[in-house]
């Protein structure tokens, strides 16, 4: 009897204790953000919800239609082993209904992807029209898989249930459905976390990441693809190149080439990217940094300065950049690593030779506006000096505080040519002849190598005919006299503007670059053969492919900057080339930002 007592007590307890009830999880809220279902450990997130219109219209989507009609799109389609139309027909035959329609309904309310670099696992989430539609399409997909692998009925019932979701496992892949939410991943734990977040009405997932929500909400309405990268958290998982890139913000070279704003972009804590398709021919990529360590002393408008006057938009490229080289020198010990300082000291010493002993940072560059206009145009060469490898010319235009500095800059230019000649002579090489020319009332100092002997070839060095001129307060320094002449004509009578916008801009004319490539096609093919070991046919194919890719675009406009220096933005607008039969809107690159 005594032995039965504990058993009886346990039986009583079991009756008195309530049975655990499996409450059905709360349904997914209709307005639940897809990112709130992605675990925080995903450091890369891609939101493709905006692709829904593309999936609905398929190849008839205006942008894709225009792309197919372009020379690049046509040749690209020709190179594909299966055309997109054939692929869609095959997919439809496999699935038993339109694959695009199916994909559109699967993803009607959202499509996202999360990547966890720690586990190297990926999860894809799709929010469909409603539970029934998703279940029906999933059933069709499973039927097709069963037919293909010869496993009839194998996927009819879910293999497991997690957090109220039906789960199927196919090798390493996991597919789960909960109402209209479909989750697909290659990591069991990651998929399980998604489902737990879906079961928790208060789950916030990536929305808890600092800055995520603000960036996601601020994306343009017509964004097709949006991505988020937690750069600082990704750093331990990335290669050395990525770490170097992130650490380069305080490199003088990066600051000189990219500037304070673009240089800070990749050093940011996080970065968002939004891609939008604009009509038939427009494509916009918007990169925005979060908590970017911008070097504010070098950022636009950190110092007063005039902006060089507008120039004709008829070149290969034109940029308006902010580079405060004066502060590079005056603040060098605060801004840059100690190992770079000897180079600055050498530059200052050398510059003193050119500028009458003046200090480069404090006395010379401090009297030049930090706003720089950079221009690249194709050049016209005299027949006897036309290089066999013609390169585009480049010129910079800056504004001097005082036009009386013109003589000092002219003297510095002439002295530097003389010094180069001494150095060349010591090495037994050709020297340059210095001469003065006039364009209207403006004097141009220019130098060039002696005219090549007819029949003996014109080397690449003849692309260099450096020239300098001062037009009012505008200082023009170019790689070629003819380009400087052009700019002198354009700047005659023009006045520098006042800076009011911190954005820097860059415009590129893709067709001009293609023409420049075409001009040097033989050179590029031969170089490819020798430097990469390609056959002529393979080298030609690659270079022509590059030309065709360039031909796909009319041009590009880039803007970088913004009011918030910790969140600089880079906006790239690409204009797709129109098919030959389409009317052209404009043959000019994007006009520079008006100031």
């Amino acid at each position, binding site marked *: 009897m005594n032995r039965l007592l504990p058993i009886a007590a346990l039986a009583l307890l079991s009756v008195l204790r309530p049975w655990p009830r499996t409450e059905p999880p709360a349904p997914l809220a209709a307005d639940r953000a897809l990112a709130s279902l992605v675990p925080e450990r995903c450091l890369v997130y891609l939101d493709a919800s905006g692709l829904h219109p593309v999936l609905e219209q398929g190849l008839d989507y205006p942008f894709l239609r225009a792309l197919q009609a372009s020379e690049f799109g046509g040749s690209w389609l020709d190179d594909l082993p299966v055309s997109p139309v054939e692929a869609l027909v095959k997919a439809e035959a496999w699935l038993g209904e339109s694959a695009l329609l199916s994909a559109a309904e699967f993803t009607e309310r959202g499509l996202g992807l999360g990547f966890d670099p720690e586990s190297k696992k990926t999860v894809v989430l799709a929010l469909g029209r409603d539970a029934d539609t998703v279940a029906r399409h999933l059933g069709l997909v499973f039927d097709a898989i069963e037919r293909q692998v010869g496993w009839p009925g194998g996927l009819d019932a879910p293999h497991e249930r997690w957090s109220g979701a039906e789960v199927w496992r196919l090798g390493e892949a996991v597919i789960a459905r909960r109402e209209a939410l479909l989750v697909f991943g290659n990591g069991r734990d990651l998929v399980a976390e998604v489902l737990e977040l879906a079961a928790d009405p208060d789950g916030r997932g990536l929305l808890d990441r600092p800055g995520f929500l603000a960036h996601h909400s601020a994306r343009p309405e017509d964004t097709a693809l949006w991505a988020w990268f937690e750069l600082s958290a990704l750093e331990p998982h990335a290669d050395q190149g990525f770490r170097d890139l992130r650490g380069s913000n305080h490199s003088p070279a990066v600051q000189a080439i990219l500037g304070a704003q673009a240089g800070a972009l990749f050093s940011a804590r996080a970065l968002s990217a939004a891609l939008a398709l604009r009509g038939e021919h427009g494509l916009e990529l918007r990169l925005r940094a979060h908590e970017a360590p911008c070097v504010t002393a070098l950022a636009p408008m950190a110092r007063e300065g005039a902006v060089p006057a507008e120039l004709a938009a008829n070149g290969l490229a034109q940029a308006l950049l902010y580079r405060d080289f004066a502060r590079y020198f005056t603040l060098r010990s605060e801004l840059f690593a100690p190992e770079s300082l000897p180079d600055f000291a050498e530059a200052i010493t050398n510059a003193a030779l050119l500028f009458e002993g003046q200090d480069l940072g404090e006395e010379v560059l401090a009297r030049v506006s930090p706003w720089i206009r950079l221009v690249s145009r194709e050049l016209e060469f005299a027949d006897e000096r036309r290089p*066999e490898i013609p390169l585009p010319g480049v010129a910079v235009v800056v504004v001097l505080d005082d036009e009386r500095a013109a003589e000092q800059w002219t003297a510095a230019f002439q002295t530097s040519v003389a010094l180069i000649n001494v150095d060349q002579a010591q090495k*037994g090489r050709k020297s340059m002849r210095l001469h003065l020319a006039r364009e209207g009332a403006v004097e141009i100092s220019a130098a060039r190598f002696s005219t090549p002997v007819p029949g*003996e*070839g014109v*080397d690449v060095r003849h692309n260099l005919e450096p020239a300098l001129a001062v037009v009012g307060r505008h200082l023009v320094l170019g790689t070629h006299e003819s380009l400087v002449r052009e700019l002198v004509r354009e700047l005659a009578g023009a006045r520098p503007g006042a800076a009011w916008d911190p954005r820097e801009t860059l415009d590129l004319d893709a067709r001009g670059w293609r023409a420049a490539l075409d001009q040097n096609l033989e*050179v590029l093919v*031969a*170089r490819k053969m*020798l430097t990469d*070991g390609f056959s002529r046919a393979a080298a030609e194919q690659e270079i022509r492919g590059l030309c065709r890719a360039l031909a796909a675009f009319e041009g590009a406009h880039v803007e970088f900057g913004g009011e918030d220096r910790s969140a600089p933005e880079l906006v790239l607008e690409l204009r797709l080339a129109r098919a030959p039969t389409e009317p052209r809107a404009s043959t000019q690159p994007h006009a520079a930002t008006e100031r």
Partner: protein
Amino acid sequence: MTGELLQPWRPRAGEWDRPAALHLYRRAGFGARPEELERALDEGLAPTLARLFADHTAPELRASIRPLLAAADLELLQAWWMALILAGGAPLRERMALVWHDLFATSNDKVDDVRLMHAQNELFRAHGLGDFRVLLRAVARDPAMLVWLDGDSNRRGHPNENFAREVMELFTLGIGHYCERDIQEAARAFSGWGTAGRSFVFRREHHDEGDKTLFGRTGNWDGDGALGLVLEQPACARHVARVLLEAFVAPAAAEEWIEALARVLVQVEWHIERTLEILLASRLFFSPAARRSRIAGPVELLAVAARALDASLVPKRAARLAADMGQALFRPPSVKGWDGGRAWIHSGSWIARHNALSELAAGAGGVAELNLAPGLAGSDESLPARVLERLLPEAAGQAPQAELERLVAAGRDDARAAAVALVLTSPEFQLF
């Protein structure tokens, strides 16, 4: 005896074997691809020799440097010549161009003009297998040579002896076959020979029109006259014969070989191709004294290894590897060219050799394509024999084979690449 040495080699049964065919390909060209070697074994010596003399260079490859000359990039010129060598379209022509580049050594370090270096290289290709006398006269007028040896500063009253000295000491006679006075007088004969732009020019106003006494003969010799007198010296044919013997037969040529070949050279009117037809088919060329008696130079080493492995090397990378090993094309270290022989191998260059050959064996870096199949596919116990047959048939049964067998027995995953690397970096493979 000497005549017999240059008599045609008539191999007895089994003598025209894989090592013999490979010996010919390594010396007269830059090695053989597997199918070339098989064909040589099938067809015999004469047809194989004829193929080595032929020129089937793809015109597109030959012309690929033209649009790039304006870039004035020496690395591209080096890559281009390396590409011609690796392609193997004209094995003997390219081999002779390299021999002449070493003899008439001219460096872009001083010339500083890629177009001139290219023109000189084409000169070696155009005249390299022809009449040596024509070649010598062309070299004497070559603008790269004139810049290299200061032709422009050789003027009446102020002779510059550089070119005259090297013509006698290095190019044609050798020390002991001329006197200081001959150099001084020859320099006067060459005065006025210079460059205008990238062309040869004779500046009469700078030429010394006075009488000069050269090799005991007095006259108003000009440059061509001086070269004629040099070519008449018996030492000249012997010097050229020595150059050919050291390039094709053995590094220390015996006097009797030199005498015999010099006689042939004069008999065939200084025609290099006809001389080589005799030399490369001779008993001397195939004798034990000649076989594997030279330490391979970097360019030939890379080319031979790549061809044996049926690998495609990226030309620019190959040229760089050769430079790392001590042979930068168009940049010989001095007017004497490369010292060659044992000087190819010292502690620094050996590491570079080891690295380059290991890179090649691994199919990495500069290798565009490494096609080891079918001969070297798989890593079973027959691998050592197959690797040796492909790369070093002369060493079958010797030290490398035992090492290879140990390596394969260890069951390494990368046994094939390791086996190839082991053979390529072995001391035996450095001997051609």
